[in-house]
């Protein structure tokens, strides 16, 4: 049996560009450009599409092997392919589960090769936590849909090529029964993508305005009006160790925090030391808890109810930790300024603290995660007034 860890370690040592951090240096477009070439390299090396079946060009790797690969990437300080995560996880698993052969042939290889970057058009100004109330309208016109509406909070839509789109095809049906799942070529006429500057100053997200946009019916995934079920089954399927890079990064940042607090003298204050130690304890516990959630996922073959507690704990401890360090640095912690719209990634503790609120909101707010835990884990009744 091939030893994946040592094979991948050797491959990474030979292929990770030594200067990629300097080349990217907080510039979002440079990061995306690098991710595209790195994705192509991974594909050429046979390391793309880890969890995908071999017949679709993937590695057919189980969760344990995917974890090994992430660990080796951390060790080798390899570039991130996070901008491809919508394509690799959502588009990939949705097409593999629900797509037609023709759709798979057309789209899957281009995800793995880094040629096509996908974004997600789910949220709308009036459909956030209540996603199923979305109003973006698609009307049948012969072999096409004509789409009108607005999407928001689409990560990397300004640099993406294609978009996963949830649209309303039957406005008279109950809200979850009238949604269809489409694939949208962002170069179609009538599509306007406007970067949305977030509170850190950076513009990682965009709004997407759709005016009489033509989408061929052939680009619908699953049956008409069945898009909600398609999107939900995809979300529940095994999606790999999604939080592992973030949690590993968080663990390594405790060391950075100790350095900064010792260098600034703030660590002399027992309150500072003890607050930081409290964050450290929670971060270490989160790492262990995630290990158990992944182990359970391996046994069960699908992401269970563990996802909600991990999402909740991760975003809340990130918020508390970055705030603790920034506060401890006092006025020095507030020196600096907002990120430029073209910037990305970590900057200083205060900016990272601002950024952490995004984690408490995106992908289901912390309060929505608490609802999920309350209802799906603890079995508490739903609010009867909520449809």
């Amino acid at each position, binding site marked *: 049996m091939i030893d994946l860890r040592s094979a991948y370690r050797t491959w990474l040592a030979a292929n990770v560009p030594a200067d990629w951090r300097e080349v990217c240096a907080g510039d979002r477009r440079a990061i995306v450009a690098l991710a595209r070439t790195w994705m192509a390299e991974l594909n050429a090396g046979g390391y793309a599409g880890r969890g995908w079946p071999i017949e679709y060009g993937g590695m057919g790797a189980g969760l*344990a*092997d995917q974890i090994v690969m992430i660990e080796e990437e951390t060790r080798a300080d390899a570039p991130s392919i996070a901008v491809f995560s919508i394509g690799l996880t959502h588009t990939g698993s949705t097409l593999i589960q629900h797509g037609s052969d023709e759709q798979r042939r057309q789209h899957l290889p281009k995800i793995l090769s880094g040629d096509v970057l996908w974004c997600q058009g789910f949220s709308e100004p009036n459909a956030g936590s209540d996603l199923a109330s979305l109003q973006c309208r698609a009307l049948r016109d012969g072999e096409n849909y004509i789409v009108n509406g607005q999407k928001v909070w689409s990560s990397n839509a300004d640099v993406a090529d294609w978009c996963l789109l949830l649209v309303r095809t039957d406005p008279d049906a109950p809200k979850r029964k009238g949604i269809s799942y489409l694939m949208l070529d962002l170069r179609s006429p009538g599509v306007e993508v406007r970067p949305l500057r977030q509170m850190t100053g950076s513009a990682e997200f965009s709004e997407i305005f759709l005016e009489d946009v033509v989408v061929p019916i052939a680009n619908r995934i699953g049956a008409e009006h069945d898009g909600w079920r398609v999107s939900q089954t995809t979300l529940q399927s095994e999606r790999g160790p999604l939080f592992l890079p973030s949690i590993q990064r968080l663990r390594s940042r405790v*060391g950075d925090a100790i350095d900064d607090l010792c260098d600034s003298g703030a660590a002399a204050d027992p309150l500072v030391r*003890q607050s930081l130690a409290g964050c450290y304890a929670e971060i270490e516990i989160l790492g262990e808890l995630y290990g158990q959630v992944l182990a359970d996922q391996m046994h069960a073959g699908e992401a269970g109810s563990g996802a909600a507690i991990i999402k909740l704990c991760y975003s809340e401890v990130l918020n508390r930790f970055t705030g603790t360090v920034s506060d401890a640095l006092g006025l020095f912690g507030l020196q600096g300024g907002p990120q430029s719209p073209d910037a990305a990634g970590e900057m200083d503790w205060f900016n990272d603290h601002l950024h952490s609120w995004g984690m408490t909101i995106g992908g289901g707010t912390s309060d929505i995660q608490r*609802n999920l835990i309350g209802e799906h884990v603890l079995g508490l*009744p739903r609010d009867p007034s909520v449809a």
Partner: protein
Amino acid sequence: MSDSPDLGIDVDIDVGIELDDVRDELRSITRRVVEQRCPTQRVRSLANDPIGFDEQLWHEAAELGWLGLEIPESYGGAGMSFAELAVVLDELGRGLVPLPVQSSVVLGTGAILAGGSDEQRTQWLPELAAGDRRLAAAVTGTSGRVGYDALSITATIAAEAVHLAGVAGFVADAHVADAFVVAARVGESVELMLVPAGAHGVGVTVESSHDQTRRLATVQFDGVEVTHASRLSGGAALYDWLIERAAVALSIDSHGGARRVMETTVQYAKDRIQFGRPVGSFQAVKHRCANMFVNVETSRVAADVAARTLPVGPGAPSRWASIAKSHAADAYVAVADSGIRVHGGIGFTWEHDMHLYLRRAKLNQALFGSSLWHRERLAEMLVAERSGRRSES
């Protein structure tokens, strides 16, 4: 699977299946015994008992093997590990069971296993496993704080004997101990020894406590003389390790109690109808319950890792002991707080058990290093680690 991941992610699925079965069985037996023999009505009645626990249950515990789980089979024990003892501690915490396990098994037996001579092991272990004799640990100073500098007993080591003078505060189960594991200062360091409760000059005064499931006492050592054969080996390292063991045991107890509070409270939130609907359908209540779940699950993980990684004897300091103690004790208090609030008026009554859990949670928080003390300890380790990193580079 080509290899197992190594960065803190435990994905090994083959190891320990048999042990898991043993622990599952131990858990179900322990829970059944606790539910039948020590329901909370019994816990309440024992609060007024001068001894404070059920002697008969103590002997049943011995027969069930709970008192000798870590003791080698050659000394009449089960030859297992702290991880199995952890299962029993978890269930005793769940039931608020007032038995002198923390004092006699976690601390007393632990001290002899790790620091006892062959003679001491032969003399004590079989009877400890059988429940025929009990130990208590006089390892904290008058303030109950831990650390060598907080100790208020001094040992003078002479050629013919060791002389002890001073006081130990907040000693659990001193009134039912046959002997004490005493930590005494010797110069800047610390020395541990076994002192018979009947030795001349030993005096026990049981103190009052807001948590009536545990009896704490002040123990006076007034010109006490013991032989050199009473000394335990290990000194400061043994002392630190005993404190860690106590901290881990309390984190496990905290998890057990917190989980019970969560289960009771979630059930109440499903059953209690107000405004024509179960109160658990309101988000304010649901979110309290979800936060309880987060506290309980993170406590489980922390206590579990701490129990699994606790060294079998004095050695490298355990970070997880401090992570688990500070986290689980604080979580227990938070969960008890939520439990009282979700129950509303009924949870504020004497008859309801919520306050029993809150009392025990608060005592767990204060015993064997406060949460702040453990966080300070962690911080010192992190800063020392940084200095190590710096001097390497």
